[in-house]
């Protein structure tokens, strides 16, 4: 039976002159690799082509359970939303790609995560709506970690088990987050020899614990922490990380260039 549901294209690769293999994140069935036959023909029933990060109604079938093929078949595709900002704004573009890679790497084939899917759609709409991209990426990241069950424990030292919550130590002192242990170290504990850590602020900790709204500066810290954390979780680099950093740097330069000398300096990107 064909399935019809909302999906977002996370990956596309050429299969032949006219066909594509697309990796769709579907709302109810998770990621699925689907063959889109004839999609590149100008008059195909897919309406031209299926671009990365496009959102639409997909009608598809999955491979039968005992089939050798792991690829399903995309029967039709009706793009339901367009996000032109991803094509005109480098930072929005990079943020959306990063979110797509996080979604692709933290969920598995046919492993449904409707809440994460919804968070991705929300992010794309917010980007198109002109909201601050890095903040929205941070909120997407928090929602994704929560939905997938990967939120680290920020309230207990990963080494000695002592509480590290807000109020346990002077607020000015940040904490070290150890990627290999997926947790924080209290100020009394030292990382092991050569152990990778990043410093995190108390505000970042609070952002998770109290589910607070995020500010511009904290969003940047959070997003960098997120990339670090996820890279440790998946044991490899995120391909989009360099693009994101480049886009952030370009946005900061553009911001500095356009800012009047008397302007306020809230880098709210």
């Amino acid at each position, binding site marked *: 039976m064909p399935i019809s549901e909302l999906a977002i294209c996370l990956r596309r690769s050429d299969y032949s002159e006219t066909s594509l293999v697309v990796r769709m994140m579907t709302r109810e069935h998770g990621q699925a690799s689907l063959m889109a036959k004839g999609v590149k023909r100008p008059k195909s029933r897919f309406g031209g082509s299926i671009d990365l990060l496009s959102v639409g109604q997909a009608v598809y079938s999955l491979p039968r359970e005992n089939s050798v093929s792991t690829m399903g078949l995309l029967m039709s595709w009706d793009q339901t939303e367009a996000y032109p900002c991803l094509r005109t704004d*480098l930072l929005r573009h990079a943020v959306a790609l990063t979110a797509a890679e996080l979604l692709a790497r933290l969920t598995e084939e046919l492993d449904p995560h409707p809440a994460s899917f919804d968070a991705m759609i929300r992010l794309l709409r917010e980007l198109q709506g002109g909201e601050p991209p890095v903040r929205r990426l941070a909120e997407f990241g928090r929602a994704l970690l929560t939905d997938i069950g990967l939120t680290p424990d920020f309230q207990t030292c990963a080494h000695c088990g002592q509480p590290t919550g807000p109020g346990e130590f002077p607020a000015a002192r940040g904490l070290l987050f150890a990627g290999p242990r997926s947790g924080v170290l209290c100020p009394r504990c030292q990382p092991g020899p050569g152990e990778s850590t990043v410093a995190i602020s108390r505000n970042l900790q609070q952002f998770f614990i109290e589910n607070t709204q995020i500010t511009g500066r904290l969003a940047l810290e959070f997003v960098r922490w997120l990339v670090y954390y996820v890279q440790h979780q998946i044991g490899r680099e995120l391909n989009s990380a360099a693009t994101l950093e480049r886009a952030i740097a370009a946005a900061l330069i553009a911001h500095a260039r356009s800012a009047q000398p008397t302007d306020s300096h809230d880098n709210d990107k």
Partner: protein
Amino acid sequence: MSGYTQTMERLIAELGRLPGIGARSAERIAFHLLKAKTDDAMRLADAIRDLKTRTRHCSRCYNLTEADPCPICSDPARDARTICVVEQPKDLMNIESTGTFRGVYHVLMGHLAPLEGVEPADLTIDPLLRRVESEGVREVILGTNPTIEGDGTALLIASLLAGREGVQVTRLARGLPSGSQLEYANKSMLADAISGRQKMG
């Protein structure tokens, strides 16, 4: 094994690696060549050899060429201060075939694909920036594909060129194909057409 001679096996295997040619077609072509006149088959072999030994990338624009710089780069009638940036030589040929562009080109040799690990250093972006710097370029037309990745590539180049005095950066227009009908346009085309609308009169 199929029982073909080793040479035949080798040819079939090589042909089968070509795009769009399956095992069956590879076999058919191999038999065709076996039966063909020696001269005819050798012409194909020579054409392949010449392609690989004589064709290279222009050291300025990275177009495919036998002479370096390529005929476009060395044509004094062309406006060397206007560079159209494209992803691949095929795109250059397409624009060239319209006969409407009198500037020069720069072939990127692909597009950025962050999720696939294709980074700026994998393309000819640095040589492009050097050309803009050294050749008195006035306009850079970004002619990458209107896909997310092509657009991302254009955005990055635009950001690298931002703030250079006297260099205008433009993007190929997009939206509705001429001769098409609105009712058949998809959402992306319409969104592009709306945001790229032009003043009339």
